[in-house]
């Protein structure tokens, strides 16, 4: 059995989509000749050349906005942000232009663009490089936000994102790129996964751990520990897509287990988990045996100090502790 790493699954998806549609073009800082700062685009420039894989200067507002403009004319740009934190210097373009132009034109214009890159903490690079803006972008109607937790999902969702006719903001994770725990077995044949579909990654009966991105890996580890050490059988739901959101899978799981702990690397105030909690209490209040609890990042800018940053973002210990608080 050959396992494919998260970064290589993305690379395969990009390569296949470059072949699938001549309008697909990859643009970003160091994506071409350098082979990608995190090697996600490795080999693509050599294979596809200057027209299809393009090195951009450090100029996110400029080149992301340019990609949005090109997408209005039918080009399908896949833009890399070296860090998703850099979206903040392109925010006007990503919100006012990409998210709003279809609406403001009464549906006459659409923006088939993908903006992808790692959005995570945990790498000791300080607050400016550790943002997790999935909640910010998911707050904006017109945008789709996808956060895959493993190689298989990253592959299938990336292909769907590139084929989608709306702007898709695709958030990866530097810690998952080479993590064996996020690697998957990929079949030879191409496949896509639908955006807007969650997946139960582990069946359980006692509590639903609902997470996205790397927090799913944390939740799976925590579930294992809960089973072995506490005799608690946790179910793990992977959101995969934040917007659109698969509420059905979330609610089915909570109805089954009657307890929910939401694991979310966002900061707590208006994080993704805030939305999930609101939905759960509204839709299945009577099925709950306990309050919905959350494990989020500790509410401060990302700390540099390596051992403390491990504590600031959700980790196995904090998840186990929170589950045991449910009683």
């Amino acid at each position, binding site marked *: 059995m050959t396992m494919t790493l998260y970064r290589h699954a993305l690379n395969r998806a990009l390569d296949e989509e470059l072949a699938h549609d001549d309008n697909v073009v990859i643009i970003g800082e160091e994506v071409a000749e350098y082979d990608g700062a995190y090697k996600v685009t490795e080999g693509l420039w050599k294979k596809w050349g200057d027209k299809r894989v393009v090195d*951009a200067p450090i100029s996110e507002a*400029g*080149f992301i*906005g340019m990609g949005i403009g090109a997408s209005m*004319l039918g080009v399908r740009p896949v833009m890399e942000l070296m860090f998703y934190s850099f979206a903040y210097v392109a925010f*006007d373009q990503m919100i*006012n232009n990409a998210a709003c132009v279809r609406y403001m034109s*009464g549906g*006459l214009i659409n923006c088939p663009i993908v903006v992808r890159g790692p959005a995570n903490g945990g790498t000791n690079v300080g607050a400016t490089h550790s943002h997790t803006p999935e909640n910010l972008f998911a707050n904006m109607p017109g945008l789709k936000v996808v956060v895959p937790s493993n190689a298989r999902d990253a592959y299938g969702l990336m292909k769907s994102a590139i084929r989608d006719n709306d702007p898709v903001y695709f958030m990866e994770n530097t810690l998952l790129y080479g993590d064996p725990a996020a690697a998957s077995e990929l079949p030879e044949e191409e496949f896509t996964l639908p955006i807007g579909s969650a997946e139960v990654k582990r069946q359980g009966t006692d509590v639903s751990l609902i997470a996205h991105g790397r927090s799913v890996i944390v939740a799976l580890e925590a579930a294992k520990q809960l089973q072995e050490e506490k005799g608690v059988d946790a179910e793990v739901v992977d959101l995969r897509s934040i917007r659109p959101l698969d509420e059905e899978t979330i609610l089915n799981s909570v109805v089954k287990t009657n307890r929910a702990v939401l694991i979310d690397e966002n900061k707590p105030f208006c994080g993704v988990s805030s939305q999930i909690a609101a939905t759960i209490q509204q839709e299945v209040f009577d099925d709950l045996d306990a309050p919905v609890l959350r494990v989020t990042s500790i509410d401060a800018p990302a700390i540099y100090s390596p051992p403390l940053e491990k504590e600031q973002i959700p980790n196995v210990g904090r998840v186990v502790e929170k589950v045991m608080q449910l009683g």
Partner: protein
Amino acid sequence: MNTPLVELSKYAQAEINLQLDAEEKISLMREMIRIRRFEEASLKYYNADKMGGFLHLYIGQESIAVGTISLCGANDHIITAYRDHGHALAVGMGMNECMAELFGKATGCSKGKGGSMHFFAPDKNYWGGHGIVAGQTPLGIGLAYGIKYKGLTGASLCFLGDGAVNQGAFHESLNLAELWDLPVIYIIENNGYSMGTSQKRSSAFKGSLAQRGEAYGIAWESAKGHDLYEVRAKTKAALDRAHRENRPTILELATYRYQGHSVADANAKKYRTPEEIVHHKENFDPLNVWKNQLIQENVLDEDTYRKIDSEAKAEARQAAEFAEQSPYPEISEITDDVYFEVDKKTTAGSQGRHFFHD
């Protein structure tokens, strides 16, 4: 004759202008008059509380949209900022759909979802209508990128005001335009004021704003914006550069707006003198200048002018009636036109929840 005597254009003999026949010259006159009468009608109905929000009027700048866009072909694309009504009419959008948009009606060009600052007509290569100062400039080079990527001979005409030249996004786009040889023409409509702040109080520059292009190696040119012949001649050179060499140009056109930054500009007559406004109206009004030019050329007479003018007034009045009688959008339509995949009822659009209101 009440037309003030103004200097005839030196650019009448430019090749691109010699190609114009009498009918085409009158058509350019008509387009400018239509814009002015549309804008005057907009102001009237704005003041009668028929519309909300902002209203940035193009009165005084008509020769720029009409002159530049008159040269555009099938693969030339246009994008501008929020003072966008003139460009909309110049690309061929109808007064009805534009006025209805101002009224917030379902028959508006954006179904009442965009408003004054956000007119679009992609079928006429018109990509807006953008509300954030200079936010359209990266989109403008994106259009140029798309034209070039598809192997077409065309250009992106990216309009901006003099206040936009100090935004970072504009400078980032300049760098990319030159770096990647993009067929974009930046047309700075310099009306002297970024809202209430004069150019001298807002911009550091040497010579002209367009000259900033030198730092990037971008060809630049400045011209009198009120002279339709000059606008066309200078635009033609920039279009040739874009079409033949895929190279950008910055073209700065001096112009003047008679009204405030928007109708909500309470200080419209405080940051400049009334004499200054009168000076521009009397000497550099683009309609008067063109009218005088055509009368001197024996292409136009007062009767024809008056006829065109009354037709334009009637058209604007009828557009307001159309807007008035049109329905507002339904509440259920608020969530239409957000996602392509949802609107088109595709498989992708049917997965998961897209809207989160109760």
